[in-house]
Structures are given as C-alpha cells and as structure tokens.
C-alpha cells in the first residue's frame, strides 16, 4: 500500500475522527442511541482501518497484541467490578441505585456509564483481536512454495 498516497493521507485524517466519534457514542450512550457495543466496534474500526492501509506490523506497534488481550479481561473486570462495588455498598449485584441512595436515578446513570465503559473496552479488544487473528494467519502453503 506504499504507493497509495491518497488512501494513506485520508486514513490518517480519518482515524482521529473515528476515535473521537467512538468516544462520543460511548459516553453519550445513555442519552442517545449508542453505548459500549457500538462504541467498541467503532473504536476497533479505527485500528482495523489503520492496519488495512499501513499493514499489520504498523498497527501492532500502536496496539500490541498483548495489550489487546489485557483489554479483553479488563473490560469484563470493570463490568463485574461495578457489580461487586454495588455489593460492597450493601445493594444487590449491579443495583446502581446504591451509588446514590438519595437520587436512585443518578445512581443508575453513573452505574450504566461504568458498565458501558467495561463493555466498550472489551468489545474494542475483541474486534481488534479477531482482526489480528485473521490478518496474522499464514497460508498453509506460501505463494512461493507452489
């Protein structure tokens, strides 16, 4: 892809915008359509696009595979951890009301934000991990071996 100047320039322009949009979908998710799943996929698209245009090596320098693996686990832990936090405050698992006993609806808002953050991180990780797995596969018989 080295000679595709237009693709490379446009990609560099787009990646930042895509990530920004992902954050918007992530944190505006409780007021408008969106949330962790969608934001995670959009976020992953930024990396996948970068990888498609500049190559797997480049994108793995930006987001190494081991970081992706940790992201998978971290997101789940944030989700479950929110529930455990609720339990420590004396409520049921994932009972967000307990975050703000006097204003349960505020508690629901903050709870959903934490949980969606976890979802977003894990979904980003999963999408990127799937891309890495497919892009990193070597054919059984190389092109030169025929």
């Amino acid at each position, binding site marked *: 892809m080295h000679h595709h100047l237009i693709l490379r320039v446009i990609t560099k322009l787009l990646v930042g915008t895509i990530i920004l949009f992902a954050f918007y979908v992530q944190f505006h998710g409780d007021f408008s359509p969106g949330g962790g799943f969608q934001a995670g996929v959009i976020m992953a698209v930024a990396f996948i696009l970068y990888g498609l245009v500049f190559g797997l090596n480049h994108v793995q320098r930006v987001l190494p595979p081991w970081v992706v*693996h940790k992201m*998978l686990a971290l997101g789940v*832990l944030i989700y479950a951890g929110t529930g455990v936090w609720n339990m420590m405050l004396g409520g*049921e*698992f994932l009972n967000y*009301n307990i975050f703000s006993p006097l204003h349960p609806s505020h508690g629901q808002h903050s709870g959903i934000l934490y949980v969606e953050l976890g979802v977003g991180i894990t979904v980003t990780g999963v999408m990127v991990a799937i891309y890495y797995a497919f892009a990193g596969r070597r054919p059984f018989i190389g092109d030169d071996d025929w």
Partner: protein
Amino acid sequence: MSAELQSVALSWQDQLPVLQIIIPFFAGPLIVLLGSRRLAWPMAFAASVAALVIAMMLLSRVIDGGFISYHMGGWAPPIGIEYRIDAANALVLVLIAAIAVVVLPFAKVSIAAEVPRRHHALFYAMFMLCFTGLMGVVITGDAFNVFVFLEISSLSTYVLVAKGASKDKRALTAAYDYLIMGTIGATFFVIGLGFLYMATGTLNMADLADRIALLGPNRTVQAGFAFIVIGMALKAAMFPLHHWLPNAYNYAPSAVTAFLAATATKAAVYVMLRFMFSVFQPEFVADSGVAAYIIGPLAVLAMFVASFIAVFQNNFKRMLAYSSIAQIGYMLLGISFFNHNGLTATMVHLFNHGITKAALFMAVGALVLRTGTTFYDRIAGMGRVMPFTGAAVVVAGLSLIGVPGTAGFISKWVLVQAAFDNGLWWMALAIMASSLLAVIYVWRVVEALYLKAPNPEAVHKEAPLMMIVPIWIMAGSTVWFGFDTSLTLGAAEMAATALLNGSSGLAEIATSAMQ
C-alpha cells in the same frame, strides 16, 4: 424503586447466590489480566474452594425444602433476572464445585505434562469460565440466563478440548465437531425459548410456569417444549445425539475430560429436569408422552448400545466416554419413569456418576503421564507398577458397575425400585443386564492393568502425590457415598419432591429463605 426501599443493606449471607458465580467469574479475567503462569493456578484453586464453601452453605440452607431467591440489580422478577436455589440445584452446585476443587490439583500436574507452558495461564482462565458457566446454568431462575451461561460454558469447553491438540491434532476436529453440535443444541434451546416467550411474554422460569398453566393446550408452547428438550438432549449427549462426546472426551487433556465428564452433561440433564418439571408442569410433560415414549426407549437403547460399543474399545479413555453415554441413559431412564423414585435415582446418579467418572478419568490422566497413551496394550501391567492408580481404577470401576458398597449401587438400587414402582419388572431386568455389560468393559481394563506383563516402554513409577490424592478423594468418596447416603439420597429425595411439586411460584420478597 424509591430510596426508602434501599434502606436495608444486604448482609454477606444474602449475597451468597451471586458470590457463588462472581468469585469464579472474576478469577477468569483476572488470571488473563495478570498473565502470570505462577499465579494462575493458585487463583483458580482459591476461587473454586470459595465456590465450594458457598455451595455447601447454600445447600445447608435449602436441604430442608424451600428456596432462596436473589434479584439481580435489585430488579424484582419477572422483570429482573432471578437466581433461585432449591435442593435440586444446590446439590448440583455442590457437585460441580467439588469436582472443580478436586480436579484442579490434579490438573496442575496433568496440564503441565499435556499442554504447552505458554498456554497455562489462558488454560486456567478458560477453566474458570467453564466452571462459572456450568454453575450459572444451574443456579439461575431465568430461562434466557440459562442460555447465556450455557454459551459461556460451551464456548470455553470448545477451547479446553482443543487444548489437547499439542498431544494429538485430532483434538482440533473433535473440538470443532463439538462446537457444531453444541451450537445446534444451544440454537434449538434458544428457539424453544423464543416460542415460549412468544406465547407467554416472560422469561422468568416461575413466571413461565404460571403463565403456561394458564394458557392451557397451546401449539406454540408444545413446539417450544420440543425444541428445548432436543436442544438439551444434544448437550447432555442423549443417545442418539451423542456423537460429539467420544471424540471430545478422548482428545481433550485428561484433566479437562475428568472435569467435563463429571459436570457438563450433568448440568444439561439438570436443565432438562428443571424445564420439564418446574417450567412445564409435570402434567404437561406426562400428557405429551415425551418421557414414556421418547426419553425412556432412547435411554434403554443408550444403556445397551453404548455399553456394547464400550466393550469393544481398545482405548481406556474412549471406553469411558462410551460408558458415560450409557450412564446418561440411566439418568434419563429415571426421568422417564416419572415418579418420585425415578427422579431421586436421576439426581443421585447425577452425583454418584459424577464422582465415579471423575476418579476414572483422573486415573486415565495418571496413566497418560507415565505411559503417554491410553490404549490397553500400552497401559498393560501398569496396575502393578502404579498400585494406587490401579486400585483406584478398580474401586471406581466397581462403582461404575454398581457393586454393593459403592455409590453406583445406590443409584441403580433406587432406579430399580422406580422401575418396580411403575410395575416395569422387565425394565429392572434391563438395568441389571446392562450392568453386566459394564462388568465386561471394566474387566477388560482390570485385565490389561493387572494380568499382563508391564509395558517396558513406559515409565515404571507411581503417579505423583498431586494426582494420587485427588484420584483417591474421588475413589474414596464413591465408597463413602455407597455406605453413607444421608447427604446424597437425602438431597436427591428432597430435590425429587421439589421437582414433582412443579413450580414454586414467583418470589415476592427479596432474597428470602422460606422454610
């Protein structure tokens, strides 16, 4: 949901149902996040010990009848997800947690020998997810939540089975077969749930039961029932839907097989029971004729055909896999009798067969460690050089046959009683006859282990203590539960009563332990 309702903080005892799931669930991603090979096993082991303690506390609270209901997120059922524990699932929870606690020390040695080092941390993470999934399937009172946990456990199981690939590449195709069959099973199950949701508009099991009872005869509900039974039959490896099982068990790492054989199909049998009796009422199931005309005959076929195939195997592990299919036949036969003793037999055999098969498959793992394989000609004579492992095979094998003084006898005894309760004396004869087949296939192993000259290529050394102790805990408990049946039979009878009473209805009070 006003602020006043929240004034009473829940104590840690009230949180037990969710701690049961969340502790092992937390351990999985935490192992991945830390990524330490050295910390992975202790964390997994600690989490499963905690889960076992919690499961026992839950069982002690429901063994006299009644149930515990836990509302996820404070949302009351039927809108919210409910965890509901009664005698039936508390017994299965204890079984699964106990197997995990015993298998994990064994796994430490076995996995070190059978799985590449760089996969160890991920292996234990997957193991914990599988464990969580199985516990979740059993504990939840929400029909869709069953599906979600089923997928968690199944997906991690496919990975665990595929981990056998470093020893034998066929593990990959076995895992793939299992993936396809398991996915079809899960799809059938969720299609069935879709039908039920369409007819009733709810997914909470107790609420489903109430609404199905109100609906009267309904074709949509019947279709849903058919899909759910077949989906679960696939997961439970009911004959003739068992084809994924022999390969998956044979090529998976030994510790995985020991864990799965003792728990995975048992959880599926439990779900089948739960749906047949708590969601669809016993009368509905009796009217449908599924138990008497489909499950019963197929169970008898499984007992004979699978045992017959097991007799002709020349591979210890594969033989045990076929024997598992036959033993699932006994459990399903108990369901098909549709009486109190029959369900007691199913529940008690679920437990007894779990510990028996765990002992046997762990012994297989010990033989693999020393001989590298499980074929009869290669493990020949190893009973003489590995006296403890060999003796455990004999003891657990006797329990598999159902010799008096072992756990296997108790379940077959109750099963025979159930057959007589229904006046099916020939069925009792069939149970005896199929046990004779078990005598043959167990004898072939004993013959190979003791009556032949030791294989000169094998390492002539007893298995390490980390393996012998778990094997003998399981082998010993097959004898223990053959004499002291107060826990197993007591809980199984209570479970059977609870199941035959049908649904216990929607719980009104949050986290209540009714007596």
